[in-house]
């Protein structure tokens, strides 16, 4: 089983190469894998039909509770067969449909990646493994929908699908984890065994709701359905595979999977029935309003997904059986119709039903396949669609609020019968209309899919005992969590369901005939559609972007002052709150031991500080700064720190020299902030000062003997030095000093580079210093001078973008 999943991923990696080598035959060759896998899974049918379940388990990330565990039961088998069977047809089809496309190899790769992910999804037993594959299907569908990446519409559609399903995916993740927490396990098989206690858990309902969001987004339930029609931007093989037969059914699959755990709870029944029913009706109605073949199919798919969801919500053997039968029937006819739509598009150049007519003459085989599938969709015997529909009606009749549900189902089916007529009959019957490309029959690769599916539709309708019975029984068994035996048959006798079928058919034909009228009247209220969820999505996206831009302009304004202000305010606020917010701590006021010369020193220092603060002349301010520095150095002298004093003195002198060197030639700064800004800054500064003072006052009491006592004791005996500070610097804490001289060195290198390395640098010493640098390594740049290359490399766009920046060029000659 594991190999079956992984093989798809491996083949995906090889696909582009294979495409280059095998070219036209690549599609056929690649299809071998799903073919083999289909056969492989088909061999399980007998055993699973008799109630067996197969497991495979590998360790993956056990410490996070993720085991690579897989289960093959009836439900999984049904899906696995669908995925691989459709996979064969789609791969072959894609080879013909996209022949000659330069990125066909990538298409194969994505399709195979998707196929493998989907397979993993339906086989996974661990919820998290299921989620992993779930996300992978979302991602590969993103790449697939955006396959025509040059078109903005395709990119937008891909993003839309990704955001909607991805967002749902995140809800799903939270839901699954909550479920895991409630059940104490992340394995489906063990969760289903404790369904009763699980449902009582307080986390169960939130978990269920989150999971439902995930399932609904994936399976395009209202109000998340809108991504699916726009995903029709993808090339048709992709739509046929992802958006009819497989991916969109992942949500339904998940619901079926969790059905044994949740089915019957009020939330489950209510949500699924209502949402499913709504989706079903809405999809059917919207399908009728379209004129694009693929969009009609897309909306009818939405409708079908709604139906499935509704049945799962209704629950019980009848509904589940109906769901499973409908699922299979839908996959067969919808896949075929998509492929037909693609073939028509490919051969005629249009998908607009109003421009297609009489194609049966040019494309007889296509027409045949289309006709059969359309009839199956309309639910006519002896096709499988008929059986499915009969079962559905039986189920709705047996449901709670059966009138309501049955009416909805009948209305929907009437609409879908009409839609089937529009898609499968209308383009092929009647007068031949001219098409953009002269129509002719599709090649074998395009015909294989639709014809095969049609044949299967007929076969499974006529002789359901040939495996279909068993398969659907097994699937229903898995969904119900108890044995279910389906005996499908074309003829059930004269039942209410048969009557409903007849009504449906008649109504459908009626709607089909009058669809022009329907569409015209609907276009009057066309504005309603802009109010739909698609509009909400666009609005939300715009709002989000607006919020993002607004917030960023506010926070990242570009003003260094505001950044500083925020930073300082945060510091003061948090520290102040922690220190004083919860009562005033004891402070150590200590005024008594102050000597008069100390007061003088401090007064001088504060005066000089004020000078640096207020003096307009730069030189004067620097001089004041120097005075402050020397005063600090005097403090050090007074309090027994001669080394410090000496260093401070030397450094202060150097500082003043540096300031003078840099600022001597510069004009005075003339920009003065507004008074209000000054006051605001002054308040902030003052608060900062008060806080720091408070910290010092509070923080002085000594609780423990300081570690420096050790240094005093051992400086001479073990440090071989009498100057304890120096011994600390070079020995006790020499590592600090090592770091310190590194800082110094780096700073010096930086100063040197800043001053010497520049654009209009005269080719002084540095150029020759550069010497024979390996030319080929710096190679791709064409400039001859090393300095010139600077601009080639990663010049920032910040300025390039704004040619009219207010900043003048440097005034250096």
């Amino acid at each position: 089983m594991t190999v079956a999943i992984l093989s798809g991923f491996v083949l995906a990696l090889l696909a582009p190469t294979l495409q280059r080598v095998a070219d036209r035959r690549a599609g056929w060759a690649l299809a071998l894998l799903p073919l083999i896998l289909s056969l492989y899974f088909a061999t399980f049918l007998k055993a699973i039909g008799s109630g067996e379940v197969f497991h495979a388990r590998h360790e993956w990330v056990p410490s996070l509770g993720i085991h690579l565990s897989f289960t093959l039961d009836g439900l999984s088998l049904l899906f696995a067969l669908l995925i691989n069977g459709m996979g064969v047809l789609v791969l072959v089809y894609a080879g013909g449909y996209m022949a000659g496309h330069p990125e066909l190899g990538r298409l194969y790769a994505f399709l195979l990646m998707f196929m493998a992910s989907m397979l993993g999804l339906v086989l996974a037993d661990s919820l998290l493994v299921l989620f992993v594959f779930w996300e992978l299907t979302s991602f590969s569908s993103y790449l697939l929908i955006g396959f025509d990446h040059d078109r903005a519409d395709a990119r937008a559609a891909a993003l839309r699908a990704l955001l909607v399903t991805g967002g749902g995916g995140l809800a799903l993740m939270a839901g699954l984890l909550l479920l895991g927490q409630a059940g104490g396990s992340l394995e489906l098989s063990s969760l289903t065994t404790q369904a009763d206690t699980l449902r009582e858990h307080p986390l169960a309902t939130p978990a269920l709701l989150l999971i439902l969001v995930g399932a609904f987004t994936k399976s395009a339930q209202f109000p998340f359905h809108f991504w699916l029609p726009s995903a029709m931007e993808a090339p048709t093989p992709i739509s046929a595979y992802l958006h009819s037969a497989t991916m969109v059914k992942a949500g339904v699959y998940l619901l079926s999977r969790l059905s044994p755990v949740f089915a019957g709870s009020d939330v489950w029944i209510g949500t699924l029935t209502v949402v499913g029913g709504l989706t079903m009706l809405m999809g059917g109605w919207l399908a009728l309003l379209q004129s694009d073949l693929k969009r009609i199919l897309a909306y009818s798919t939405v409708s079908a997904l709604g139906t499935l969801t509704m049945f799962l919500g209704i629950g019980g053997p009848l509904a589940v059986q109906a769901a499973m039968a409908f699922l299979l029937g839908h996959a067969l006819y919808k896949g075929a119709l998509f492929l037909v739509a693609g073939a028509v598009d490919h051969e005629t150049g249009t998908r607009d039903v109003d421009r297609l007519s009489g194609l049966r003459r040019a494309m007889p085989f296509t027409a045949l396949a289309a006709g059969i599938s359309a009839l199956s969709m309309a639910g006519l015997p002896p096709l499988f669609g008929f059986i499915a529909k009969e079962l559905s009606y039986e189920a709705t009749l047996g449901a709670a609020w059966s009138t309501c549900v049955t009416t909805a189902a009948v209305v929907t089916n009437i609409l879908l019968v009409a839609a089937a007529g529009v898609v499968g009959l209308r383009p092929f019957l009647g007068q031949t209309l001219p098409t953009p490309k002269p129509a002719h029959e599709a090649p074998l690769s395009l015909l294989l899919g639709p014809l095969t599916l049609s044949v299967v539709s007929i076969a499974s309708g006529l002789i359901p005992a040939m495996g279909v019975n068993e398969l659907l029984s097994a699937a229903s068994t898995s969904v119900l969590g108890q044995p279910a035996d389906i005996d499908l048959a074309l003829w059930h006798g004269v039942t209410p369901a048969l009557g409903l079928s007849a009504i449906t058919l008649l109504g459908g034909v009626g709607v089909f005939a009058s669809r022009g009228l329907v569409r015209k009247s609907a276009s009057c209220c066309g504005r309603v559609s802009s109010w739909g969820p698609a509009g909400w999505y666009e609005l939300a996206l715009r709002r989000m972007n607006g919020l993002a831009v607004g917030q960023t302009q506010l926070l990242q304004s570009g003003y260094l002052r505001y950044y500083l202000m925020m930073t300082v305010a945060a510091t003061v606020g948090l520290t102040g709150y922690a220190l004083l917010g919860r009562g005033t701590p004891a402070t150590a006021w200590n005024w008594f031991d102050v000597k008069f010369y100390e007061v003088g020193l401090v007064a001088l220092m504060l005066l000089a500080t004020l000078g640096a603060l207020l003096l307009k002349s730069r030189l004067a301010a620097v001089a004041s700064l120097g005075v402050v520095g020397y005063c600090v150095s005097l403090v050090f002298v007074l309090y027994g720190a001669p080394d410090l004093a000496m260093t401070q003195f030397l450094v202060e002198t150097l500082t003043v020299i540096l300031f003078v060197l840099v600022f001597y030639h510069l004009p005075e700064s003339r920009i003065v902030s507004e008074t209000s800004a000054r006051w605001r800054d002054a308040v902030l500064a003052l608060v900062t000062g008060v806080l720091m003072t408070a910290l010092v006052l509070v923080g002085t009491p000594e609780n423990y003997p300081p570690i420096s006592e050790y240094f005093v004791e051992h400086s001479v005996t073990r440090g071989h030095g009498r100057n304890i500070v120096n011994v600390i610097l070079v020995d006790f804490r020499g590592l600090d000093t090592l770091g310190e001289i590194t800082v110094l060195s780096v700073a010096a290198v930086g100063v040197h580079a800043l001053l010497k390395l520049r654009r209009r640098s005269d080719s002084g010493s540095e150029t020759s210093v550069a010497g024979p640098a390996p030319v080929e390594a710096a190679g791709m740049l064409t400039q001859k001078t090393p300095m010139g290359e600077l601009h080639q490399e990663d010049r920032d766009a910040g300025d390039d973008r704004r040619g009219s920046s207010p900043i003048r060029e440097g005034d250096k000659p």
Partner: protein
Amino acid sequence: MTSLILRTATRFLLPLLVLFSLFLLVRGHHEPGGGFSGGLVAAAAFVLYGLAFGIAEVRKALPLDPRTLIGSGLLIAVTSTTFSLFAGQPLMTSLWWKVAIPGFGDLDLGTPLLFDLGVYLAVAGVTLLIILPLAEE
């Protein structure tokens, strides 16, 4: 700035100041001083020289390029810390030797002094590398 007195005085001062800086370095382990102040003073000597004769002359007078000074200072400092590793001791463990110098007595020599020498060289190089280009501007 180019007065004769300053030039003459500087010619004498340069070696004196360098000597003084070395004195600070050597004495630092026992009395206030040390590699950092020593290095600064040494650099100051050359800056003074530059004031008298111009920065270009300093570059000529310097025995080593400042970057070489920095590199060697760092390397000496690092190396001095690693000796102990070879002796199976933790990094920076000081090793001391008593060296008897005739007519002077015993001298305590140890890796921390070598480390301090590295600091001295690096600091001198750093200060020069910072000030010289700024002064040239």
